[in-house]
């Protein structure tokens, strides 16, 4: 009697435990069954059936940090085609020995052609899929196939996608107008009424010959270099045009994303002066009593230092610095004006003035919401710039001024 009740308890216990083992593990995948995707290129294929051509840059981990490397390429590119993004992904999996794991996508490159046709549909899958992350960086490949960007050997990082990320981070700190543009930012940009996102451009500089082999790096000057380039301006989800130079810098300033950029101005009678703008603070206000004719006031204050001075200037005198400031202010205003003019030209409020308007006058915004691009193209902007020269770096006057 006692024995049978014990075995009954044992039986129940086993029945409780065994299903746990069966139920668990169904989505467990060991690391050596995964193929980690570092970057995805999205190209326009031929016709509707092959609308999306997805190229996955898969990391060959053994080649990067393993002990027994075979001397093969550190990444491999697999391509899939389909009506939709998901179908293309499924197609690509036919070629890969392991599960394509999208959790570590650093970079998404979209070809210019796809961008011109619209990127709305593909953004949905990026947001919906649980594996992909919203912090992946987005790029538009200017005039080239996106898959070419994903299949170029790079010098500094064995993984080209990582190389591109690092390049963007570096340039956004040192040069200026490119800044981090993540999937999340792009989706929010598309939702801007009458506007659109701004996305970094990327190109390959040099010859494509042998760019996808080690030969690319065998010479001191690499044949082909991935390069972060101009900004792609969108209206809704379609590419409208490319911003560069002053226009691009002004756009970045208006987005308040600038970290530091060189400003070069001509000083009458003594050549060029180079400044390092290391802090910019932007504020946009609007007088929107009449929603059809709002007046935007863009207020910007900057802190700069002198990096390069023509030798004749006496930088120890406060007056000299006071005289320099207006020139700098004019330079900043020019950039912002150029950016606004270009946005007006494209009839796209990708800078987000509409949001300022909506916050200030929600009722008025409802009236102009549907034809905001027309109102935007016609409305008035006032720019109030201010700049302070904080220091002249570790010299005061140039060595040539001292007797």
């Amino acid at each position: 009697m006692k024995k049978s009740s014990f075995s009954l308890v044992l039986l129940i216990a086993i029945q409780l435990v065994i299903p746990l083992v069966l139920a668990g593990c169904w989505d467990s995948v060991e690391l050596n069954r995964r193929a980690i995707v570092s970057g995805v290129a999205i190209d326009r294929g031929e016709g509707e059936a092959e609308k999306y051509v997805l190229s996955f840059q898969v990391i060959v981990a053994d080649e990067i940090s393993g002990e027994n490397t075979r001397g093969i390429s550190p990444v491999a590119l697999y391509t899939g085609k389909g009506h939709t993004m998901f179908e293309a992904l499924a197609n690509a999996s036919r070629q890969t020995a392991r599960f394509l794991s999208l959790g570590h996508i650093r970079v998404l490159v979209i070809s210019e052609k796809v961008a011109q046709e619209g990127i709305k549909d593909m953004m949905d899958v990026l947001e919906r899929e649980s594996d992909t992350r919203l912090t992946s960086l987005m790029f538009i490949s200017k005039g080239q196939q996106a898959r070419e960007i994903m299949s170029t050997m790079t010098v500094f990082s064995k993984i080209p996608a990582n190389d591109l990320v690092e390049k963007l981070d570096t340039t956004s700190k040192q040069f200026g107008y490119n800044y981090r543009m993540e999937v999340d930012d792009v989706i929010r940009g598309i939702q801007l009424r009458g506007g659109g996102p701004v996305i970094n451009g990327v190109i390959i500089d040099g010859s494509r010959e042998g760019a996808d082999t080690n030969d690319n790096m065998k010479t001191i000057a690499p044949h082909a270099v991935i390069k972060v380039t101009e900004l792609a301006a969108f209206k809704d989800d379609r590419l409208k045009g490319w911003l560069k130079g002053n226009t691009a810098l002004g756009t970045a300033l208006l987005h308040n994303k600038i970290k530091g950029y060189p400003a070069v101005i001509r000083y009458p009678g003594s050549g060029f002066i180079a400044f390092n703008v290391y802090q910019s603070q932007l504020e946009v206000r609007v007088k929107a009593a009449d929603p059809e004719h709002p007046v935007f006031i863009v207020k910007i204050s900057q802190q700069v230092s002198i990096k390069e001075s023509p030798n004749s200037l006496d930088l120890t005198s406060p007056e000299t610095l006071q005289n320099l400031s207006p020139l700098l202010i004019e330079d900043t205003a020019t950039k912002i004006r150029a950016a606004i003019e270009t946005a007006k030209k494209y009839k796209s409020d990708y800078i987000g003035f509409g949001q300022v308007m909506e916050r200030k006058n929600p009722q008025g915004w409802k009236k102009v919401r549907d034809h905001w691009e027309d109102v935007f193209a016609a409305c008035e902007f006032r720019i109030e710039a201010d700049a302070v020269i904080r220091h002249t770096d570790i010299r005061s006057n140039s060595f040539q001024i001292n007797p």
Partner: protein
Amino acid sequence: MSSGRRNMDSQAEAAGLTGRGGRTSGLTEDLDETILNIRTELGESPDLKVRRLQIGGERSVQAAAIHISGLADPAAVNEFVIGSLLAEPQKLPESAANPARIQAVLLDGILELGDAEVTDGWNDLLLAVLSGDTAVLIEGCMSAVLCDTKGGESRSVEESSSQMVVRGPKDGFVESVATNISLIRRRIKSPKLRLEYTRVGTETQTHVAMLYMKELAGKDLVEEVRSRLNKIAIDEVLESGFIEELIQDKTFTPFPTIFNSERPDVAAGNLLEGRVVIIIDGTPFVLILPAVFTQFFQSAEDYSQRFDIAILMRLVRYVSFIVLLLGPSVYIALTTYHYEMIPTTLLINLLSQRETVPFPAFVEALLMEGAFEILREAGVRMPRVIGQTVSVVGALILGSAVVEAGIITPIMVIVIALTGIASFAIPSYNMAIAGRIIRFGFLLLGGMFGFYGITLGLIVLVAHMNSLRSFGIPYLSPFVPLSVKGQKDTLLRLPLWLMKSGKTPAQLRKEMPDYKRVTTGHEAALAPLIRNNDAAGRKQDREDGRDEEK
């Protein structure tokens, strides 16, 4: 002492010593018969020493001194029992006509012992002799005189080997209950310290002492401990673990609900916090109760070091407990379910490590954990001479060979090693082994369900800990139920003056004679402050003094 003895005698009777020889009493008026009875009762044991004497004037009275060699202190038996019995015969009555009178004279003027008394209980006699006392029997007397000659070999007070400190007292408890009590009494010279004796174990008749501070320890608590101790009905008590298991609130839990220590300073500190200390004869480990979870992460050293450093060390211990519980399971959950949470560069590293490993991460972890447990178990039992071998073999096999052979990934070795070291960072050994067991549960959960399983496991664990009580005190207090005041000595260890509520450092320091005061050069600025504190301190002193006079 005598009341204690009476207490334990009745205990012995209750425990049923009488039943042993089927004899109600072996004490007779005939000395020879009594000695024979004792001999028979103890199975003709050769270490039972019977010394026959002729005492009294003209050496007219037959007597015998009985003790067990090894248990009794030979010097005490020779000098204070037999020596004094034979020394001054003229003090004793000359005839054996009145044996009771002889006994009275023995107690009053002959026996040079601090503790001696008359008993007519057969079991009391046997128990006393078995405890190391000497029994003096007199012809024609139905009772015996019991002389306290307990002694024999025992270990001297040494540094505790299980709970070591860098700074702090170095003495540790020993196996003798009397020595242990003295170690505590030396630290607390207060009349409020209460001691109660009882005997537990029908065969072993082990001395169990219960200590508490009157007024500080709750009456209910003391009563509860007393009643639980008295309810124990077991043959043998060989270690404090026996008592712990029989009086704890819950058996089916990995967590210890009674604290144990080998350190007198810890026992004293806990007494002063109102806890009860149980000392068991034959083991250097005393029980301290009630115990709460945070207590197992406190070390005696916390109070010797500066408070900020003590806080840091305490946090390190809590972190190591979490690492011990979750280290391998989080690693497995991360690599098999949540690879997206691992930073990309690290992931590439892990990927290439795993490339050639034949087992799933879960099996890998189980293998390594198993090997580590074997190693640890072997290391504990290993004779000290060959102990080195274990560490060499362990370091070689677990450290490098498995990695070189490609069976285990290097990162797994790191994870397991970290877990192993974390288990040693916990000051209380029984909490550390609790963590080691629970870790395997989490390993299973992490391997089957990932973070989802680990989270569920943690919820169940916390619920279980909430259900635990130690003598009525919730195990997780002062967190659950939350007491803000109780936090002063749990995760943190605040400075002493902050812990003792409402007193400033100066008040705690009391007044210091002027000539001893260290000059800082800032007296002028501090003067008003010092004056105030001194005034308060002096007033306090005066009151204290008055109390003492009374």
